[in-house]
């Protein structure tokens, strides 16, 4: 890769465009110009095409139309590395919060009997349709998540996953505990770290935007068991976790473990 520029594509499915905005807002992006060629990035570049081969494909958004199913398949064919970026691409996003409701019912309440020529589907994560090589968590991911992933790719290495919860970073920052001291349903104990406990540092309970920490060890953390001690029900915690984890197949099982532990 030394002799040529790395080819990058940034593709959007159904989302708020926040992951791309985060990427575009990095001052470091100007340093990237010498090292990378942007083949597709509609948000910034009129000369974009989804038909070109790329080395790294960043995909933002949930798969929410039939056209988007075809698009992710095409991106997979043309890309060496596919990175699912942000909560929508990784977990289906907040638009999956209503997963338990029927699409037909959602559709009817919003559009009534009015005719729209496109066919919608329920929002789903990218991984449901294609192989994803790496995931950037968060709503949106932190700038340093992008820098770390891109930096390791550029030097021909591979970024590591974070396998510890927000609580670790929160303790290191010396914040007072929102769950224990204020009794609010802070999802810090069960959420992927990497945000430097951004919200708890503002005295705001974590809503789990980086998704549930995927390594089962953390689920038996004594902090997670505080949910029960503080009188939160399993349903309350589950519903809060579903905001950003609707498509996590292990969610219920994991939350059950917290609430069954020690009974």
């Amino acid at each position: 890769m030394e002799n040529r520029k790395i080819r990058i594509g940034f593709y959007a499915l159904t989302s708020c465009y926040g992951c791309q905005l985060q990427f575009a807002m990095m001052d470091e992006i100007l340093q990237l110009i010498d090292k990378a060629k942007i083949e597709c990035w509609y948000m910034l570049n009129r000369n974009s095409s989804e038909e070109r081969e790329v080395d790294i494909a960043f995909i933002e958004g949930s798969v929410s139309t039939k056209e988007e199913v075809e698009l992710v398949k095409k991106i997979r064919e043309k890309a060496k590395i596919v990175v699912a970026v942000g909560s929508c691409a990784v977990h289906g996003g907040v638009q999956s919060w209503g997963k338990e409701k029927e699409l037909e019912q959602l559709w009817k309440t919003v559009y009534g009997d009015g005719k729209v020529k496109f066919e919608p589907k329920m929002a789903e994560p990218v991984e449901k349709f294609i192989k994803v090589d790496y995931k950037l968590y968060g709503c949106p991911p932190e700038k340093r998540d992008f820098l770390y992933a891109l930096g390791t790719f550029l030097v021909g290495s591979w970024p590591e996953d974070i396998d510890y919860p927000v609580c670790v970073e929160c303790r290191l920052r010396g914040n007072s505990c929102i769950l224990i001291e204020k009794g609010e349903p802070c999802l810090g104990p069960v959420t992927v770290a990497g945000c430097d406990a951004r919200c708890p540092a503002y005295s705001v309970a974590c809503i789990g935007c980086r998704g549930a920490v995927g390594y089962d060890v953390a689920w038996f953390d004594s902090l997670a068991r505080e949910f029960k001690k503080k009188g939160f029900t399993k349903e309350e915690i589950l519903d809060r976790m579903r905001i950003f984890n609707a498509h996590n197949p292990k969610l219920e099982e994991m939350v059950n473990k917290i609430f069954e532990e020690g009974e």
Partner: protein
Amino acid sequence: MYIPITVDHIARVEGKGGIEIVMGDEGVKEVKLNIIEGPRFFEAITIGKKLDEALAVYPRICSFCSAAHKLTALEAAEKAIGFTPREEIQKLRELLYIGDMIESHALHLYLLVLPDYLGYPDPLSMVDRYKREIEYAMKLKNIGSKIMDVLGSRAIHQENAVLGGFGKLPSRAQFEELRKELKEILPLAEYTVELFAKLEQFREVEDKENVHMAIKPRGGIYGIYGDYVKVSDGFEFPVENYKEWIVERVVEHSFAKHSFYKEKPFMVGAISRIVNNADLLYGKAKALYERYRDLFRYDNCFANNLAQALELVYFTEKAIDIIDETLARWPIRERDAVEIKDGFGVSITEAPRGLLVYALEVKNGRVSYADIITPTAMNLAIMERHVRMMAEKHYQDDPDRLKLLSEMVVRAFDPCISCSVHVVKL
């Protein structure tokens, strides 16, 4: 047989949309803005959810104006539960909102609009020849982001604005630093006005029928919050009556609904605010407005770009004033206790792209009704009309020229397509 001229995916706008110009024997037959992004059902999915969790989800409708969504939803929710924030908290929320306004305008003007005028496909390749412009763009959007970062917890999807106030307020030193940096970017904002005053406003889309809607700012100073909506035909209505005057309809070529006022399309956004409220400006922005008065045209959507540039100056000065008032009152308590009572509330504010409506009903601590109308949903109908006007003048030109001009019309409205497709009603 005519082949439609299409732009499948309009670049340099927020979200995914396309333009379709259908030709016939008589010239342009039909112009459609196709909104191809999937629907996200925000109102429907938040029904039955806890109020604070729903309030964390609404901003995710759009990243370019997440603070606008957060703060408008918050005001509607606080009205619903019968809580009025203290004046100093209200001011700080406006400051957070201004951060969004500055960032959004800077991004739109320099990164999305300017490349068209300078003949570039994207802003990054402008760096070699237009280093100053790119540097200004970064500095301006950085100060907007920094306000949101420091006061809102982050630049995209702020969590620090909560029912009753803020989770935590920045320190006095942080406010002082913001103030210093805002002072430093003021000349950059003024330069932006001078720059955009020179750019062409295409006469093809001149439309004497343009109707503009904007908030009647609370306190009689040009701003974001208000209790009445003003229309450029002289009409006013209280925000609670929005449904009578902003009428939404489903159209078949779009996941987003179109809005009408008295059966006609209308416009919202920076130029609509200037058209309705220019007499409420003050400071450097007032002087610049007077200097370029003739360019702030109600009958040309391209004036929206210049109006945004003027607002960069205005809101930078206003942000400095709010920080001064805040520091004069220091220390400020960040939050009051709220009781989540049942009720219904409507808030309409000025998002970067124009009026943003939130109507929320709360029952037993949960959202029982939600209706959201975004500025882009309001602008879609008039946007189509103006792309059509452009197409009617240029359909015999090179299709690439027509495509570019049509895209430029769309970009002048600064559409936020993600915003427009979350859509409505229960």
